[in-house]
């Protein structure tokens, strides 16, 4: 089942501007593209998610960070940085806290919701890029019922799920096996001590990118106490974080495939060749026609 992308005879808009606007304020990129209702809904949802996270954590998430690592730019390496305006708000109003206090009861949930808002906004920026590419085109372009951004979000939520939804089942199984295997091996090596944001602030950010399996594992080990030296803890942290970072590569693969499919490009074209072919097609295409790819440029498919 397919749905029509919001294209037509709108003037061409910049994908870069749409991405940057979305990064700074959820939904702003879509408002720039003329999709005002969608943009405002996204703004309310993602900012609301962050606000709920702040409420539950009482804005104390960044107090997990060791004092010697705190700086104005230290939080830019967290998942929350995906929602820049909310991150700025948190830094301005809560910062690194006034001093040692008791952690709120739901600080882990609150911390997770803020991070989730960041990754959600990154996927929203991908959607804005896709929508911007569709502007300025007189062609009717199509996409699967699940948008490229949602497929990418699914790839984050469960490694391999994005590929599975695209019908790339062999790849889905391989990606899931490799990434979840690597993450589990990391947990075993670190004896599950790797899952706490309080103990390992930045490594937690890397492991957050493994998606819901990491969240489930963290929840299962929430009451863990460390009573001895863990021999392979560093290796475990490294494995868990590498699994998360490699999942970003898998997410990019899912997005590239979804976007190519939506715009009528051949998704099987190797990535380097695809970019060169697109550049060549752009340089030879009549002005004002965007999305004219090498394989027919998104000829009417409904």
């Amino acid at each position, binding site marked *: 089942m397919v749905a029509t992308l919001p294209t037509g005879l709108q003037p061409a808009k910049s994908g870069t501007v749409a991405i940057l606007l979305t990064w700074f304020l959820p939904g702003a990129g879509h408002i720039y593209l003329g999709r005002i209702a969608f943009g405002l809904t996204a703004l309310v949802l993602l900012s609301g998610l962050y606000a709920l996270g702040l409420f539950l954590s009482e804005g104390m998430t960044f107090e997990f960070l060791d004092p010697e690592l705190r700086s104005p730019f230290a939080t830019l390496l967290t998942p929350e940085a995906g929602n820049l305006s909310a991150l700025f708000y948190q830094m301005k109003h809560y910062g690194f806290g006034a001093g040692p206090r008791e952690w709120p009861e739901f600080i882990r949930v609150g911390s997770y919701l803020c991070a989730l808002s960041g990754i959600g906004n990154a996927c929203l920026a991908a959607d804005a890029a896709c929508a911007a590419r569709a502007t300025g085109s007189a062609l009717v372009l199509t996409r699967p019922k699940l948008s490229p951004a949602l497929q990418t979000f699914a790839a984050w939520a469960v490694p391999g799920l994005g590929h599975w939804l695209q019908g790339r089942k062999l790849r889905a199984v391989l990606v899931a096996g*490799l990434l979840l295997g*690597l993450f589990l091996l990391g947990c075993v090596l670190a004896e599950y001590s790797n899952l706490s944001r309080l103990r390992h602030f930045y490594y937690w950010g890397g492991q957050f990118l493994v998606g819901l399996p990491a969240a489930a594992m963290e929840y299962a080990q929430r009451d863990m106490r460390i009573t001895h030296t863990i021999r392979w803890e560093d*290796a475990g942290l490294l494995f868990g974080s*590498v699994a998360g970072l*490699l999942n970003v*590569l898998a997410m990019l693969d899912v997005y590239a495939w979804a976007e190519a499919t939506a715009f009528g490009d051949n998704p099987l*074209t190797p990535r380097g060749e695809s970019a060169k072919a697109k550049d060549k097609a752009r340089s030879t295409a009549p002005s004002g026609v965007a999305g004219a790819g090498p394989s027919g440029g998104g000829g009417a498919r409904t």
Partner: protein
Amino acid sequence: MSELATSIALFLVVALAIVALSTFYVEPDDSRALRMLGPRYLKFLLWCAGIVGVMLLVQKLFLDLNG
């Protein structure tokens, strides 16, 4: 198993994941990606071995950890 052997085994595992995911990214076609995987893995390991060799050489020439 000695610590060195365990470290090497862990390295081989993480290297496989790194090479596999990067291969899947550059090559969207599954069968071509799987064919490329072996040579790319070997190439990655050889480059890493080369870097280890250089590091050991530098250590031998310029550092005296026992002195």
